[in-house]
């Protein structure tokens, strides 16, 4: 029960984050979507061994967390199922890539580098996506997808799935509550009734999803105005924000900024 309620709570929690009135929440959704996609592209196509260069690219998510006033701890907690996975994807490299490289005069296995880089890439992309959904409401995201000419049917599907999941979870929570109240002193749910419970859950979930959909239709959903809901005008600020970050991402992924910076600072110190 705790688990289900917790899941519902978490979904609503994300929506509440996205609905806040922060500066970065107000940035045009298309700008944020494009930047996130571009950023993920840049991160993924980064050289396998260039962990130092990758660290430079961390500036985007770091700035996102700061501008969005998001808690890093919260972010890690919410992404707790994905983060370990993406960190582990590079593990085989440690054993498969047996070459040696010189790093600041020390011989290190290349596998270690590629593993760390891969993990870093994973973490950065996860956080970039997290920042996008934590600062952009679902409606705005759908609106941006529509602007990119993603087919309408697909966007509707996406939106309804999201609503359906919440409805299903709430319904499940309610059924488990009703069950436990009438089966006091029993731990968990008896295996025998699992079948009927899940069947019922599906039916009730569909029923409620149908009702929700009807209610959306009655209030103008899917009319010609449809996806205008998340509609936001594009301001000068949005364009500047876009250019700024596009520039930063390009610079960090094309030139070795950190080594150059290091040399510069080193030069000054000497």
């Amino acid at each position, binding site marked *: 029960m705790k688990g289900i309620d917790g899941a*519902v709570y978490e979904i*609503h929690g994300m*929506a*509440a984050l996205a*609905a806040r009135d922060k500066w970065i929440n107000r940035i045009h959704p298309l700008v944020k979507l494009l930047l996130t996609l571009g950023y993920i592209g840049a991160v993924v196509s980064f050289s396998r061994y260039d962990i130092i260069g990758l660290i430079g690219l961390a500036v985007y998510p770091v700035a996102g967390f700061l501008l969005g006033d998001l808690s890093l701890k919260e972010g890690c907690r919410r992404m707790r199922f994905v983060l370990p996975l993406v960190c582990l994807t590079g593990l085989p490299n440690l054993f498969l890539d047996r070459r040696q490289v010189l790093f600041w005069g020390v011989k290190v296995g290349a596998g270690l580098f590629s593993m760390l880089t891969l993990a870093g890439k994973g973490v950065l992309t996860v956080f970039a996506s997290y920042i996008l959904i934590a600062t952009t*409401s679902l409606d705005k995201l759908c609106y941006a997808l529509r602007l990119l000419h993603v087919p309408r049917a697909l966007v509707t599907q996406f939106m309804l799935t999201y*609503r359906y999941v919440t409805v299903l979870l*709430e319904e499940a929570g309610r059924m488990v509550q009703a069950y436990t109240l009438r089966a006091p002193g029993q731990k968990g749910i008896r295996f025998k009734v699992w079948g009927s419970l899940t069947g019922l859950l599906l039916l009730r979930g569909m029923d*409620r999803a149908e*009702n*929700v959909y*009807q*209610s*959306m*239709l*009655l*209030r*103008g*959903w899917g*009319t*010609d*105005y*449809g996806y*205008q*809901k998340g509609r936001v005008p594009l301001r000068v600020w949005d364009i500047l924000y876009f250019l700024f970050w596009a520039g930063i991402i390009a610079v960090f992924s094309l030139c070795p900024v950190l080594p150059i910076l290091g040399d510069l600072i080193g030069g000054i110190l000497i």
Partner: protein
Amino acid sequence: MSHIRIDVDDLFFGYEKENDILKGISFHARESESVGIIGENGAGKSTLLKLLVGLYGQYRGCIRIEDIPVEKSTLSVIRSRIGYVFQDSESQLFMNTVYEDIAFAPRNYGLPEQEVEKRVERALKMTGAERLKEKQIYKLSGGEKKLAAIATVLSMTPDILLMDEPSGALDPQNRRNLIRILNSFGHLKVIASHDLDMVLDTCQRAVLMYRGRIVKDGPAEEILTDRELLEAHGLELPLCLQGRSGGLRKT
């Protein structure tokens, strides 16, 4: 505004084939009438209201709203003029916060954000739910959900108001508040309910349904005080009349 009207002629409908739930309903209402549809559980009240907004397509007979037949091609026009409050307000609300939910319809109809905000404020004020404005939907109580659901419909400024069991889950004060809202709505309204006291307080006309048919249609005062008629069709006199007409009743 003389075109505001509902015309239903010889309507048949069933959820399953060969099993009609509504059996030959004819019903007309217009202008600023207020009609209470009463009937026992399962009489077909909700089904009738849902057909009026075109939620089920495969009916036989004729339904016209403001002289427009209810068909697939006319649904968006018809729905923009009708406000419908579901019996189950749980289903009616689906956005994150109360504000977002009330703003859903005006935004969908392409109103500028300033106007949307005005409409939301007005709807909240009318329902006396201002303090719920920023609350998240899933944290509302049953009655609060009902108020929010009513507000989501008022923000559409509809010509016609359809309400399915609007007083369910409301406490006495909010119930009185609802009666006030209903009475201040000047256009055509149709209220399906077995809260006969509320129907008596808000409707001039009553339509009594029984097992998918209309058995009586007339002035609310007349129908709602006819004990024999009501009891023959699974209802009882409104509570406010029970004491007056029969004194202490033997059981």
